[in-house]
């Protein structure tokens, strides 16, 4: 963690990710699970609206407006999960200590396994649909691919949020901003 000199960006990100002002939002496992559930729901909603916006022809702009409106709570939920994980996935590798690096590897491995299962399920669904309706794979392949890509991108964050541990009661919480190495 300190073997490499931290840049100004690293220090500011470290401070931001360890800022405890929003701690109440992710202090318990139930709250973290709720945040991840909300984040998943918002991601699905935004993805659905995006698909609708690009595929539907001659539609009004309301899906785009709704998408922009939903992006704000999505970003807040992302921030809460990042706070809960102390920036496990946002901080650069050399900023993390050995425990955090190992934790990041575990999270990425779990996310990879889950994404693999999801890809297998998507491929199976596409093949089954193709058996019923020959044009279906061609019609659904692109949206499905984009959906899987988005899930592949965000899955580590969800996994990290779900696996994050409670701040132990006996840990002295540093003052906000006291982490400027």
């Amino acid at each position, binding site marked *: *963690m*300190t*073997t490499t000199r931290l840049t100004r960006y690293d220090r500011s990100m470290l401070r931001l990710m360890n800022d405890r002002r929003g701690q109440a939002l992710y202090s318990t496992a139930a709250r973290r699970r709720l945040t991840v559930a909300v984040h998943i729901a918002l991601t699905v909603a935004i993805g659905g609206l995006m698909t609708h916006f690009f595929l539907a022809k001659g539609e009004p702009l309301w899906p785009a407006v709704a998408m922009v409106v939903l992006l704000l709570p999505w970003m807040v939920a992302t921030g809460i999960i990042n706070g809960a994980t*102390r920036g496990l996935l946002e901080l650069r590798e050399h900023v*993390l*200590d*050995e*425990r*955090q690096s190992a934790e990041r590897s575990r999270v990425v491995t779990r996310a990879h396994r889950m994404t693999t299962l999801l890809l297998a399920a998507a491929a199976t669904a596409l093949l089954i649909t193709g058996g019923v309706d020959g044009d279906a794979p061609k019609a659904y392949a692109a949206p499905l691919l984009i959906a899987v890509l988005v899930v592949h991108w965000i899955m580590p964050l969800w996994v990290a949020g779900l696996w994050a541990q409670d*701040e*132990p009661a*006996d*840990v*002295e919480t*540093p003052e906000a901003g*006291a982490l400027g*190495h």
Partner: protein
Amino acid sequence: MSEQVHNRLAMVRAERKVSRQSLAEAVGAHYQTIGYIERGQYNPSLDLALKISKFFNLPVEALFSLEPFRPLTDEVYGRNQP
């Protein structure tokens, strides 16, 4: 696969009046990592264990052991283990 490594870190840190944050900064770790080590939820690497020992100017075996530590009073007053 991972074996429990026992440690006296919390006791020594309290005795020396060093905060987790200060120790973490000195050894290049996150303050939570120090807490996890103290509670036996994380076994430090040899590198980190040596850095912590060096910080307290103690031999590494004074802080970390594969066997549970005897109570300090027993060691000081020489009581035999039952």
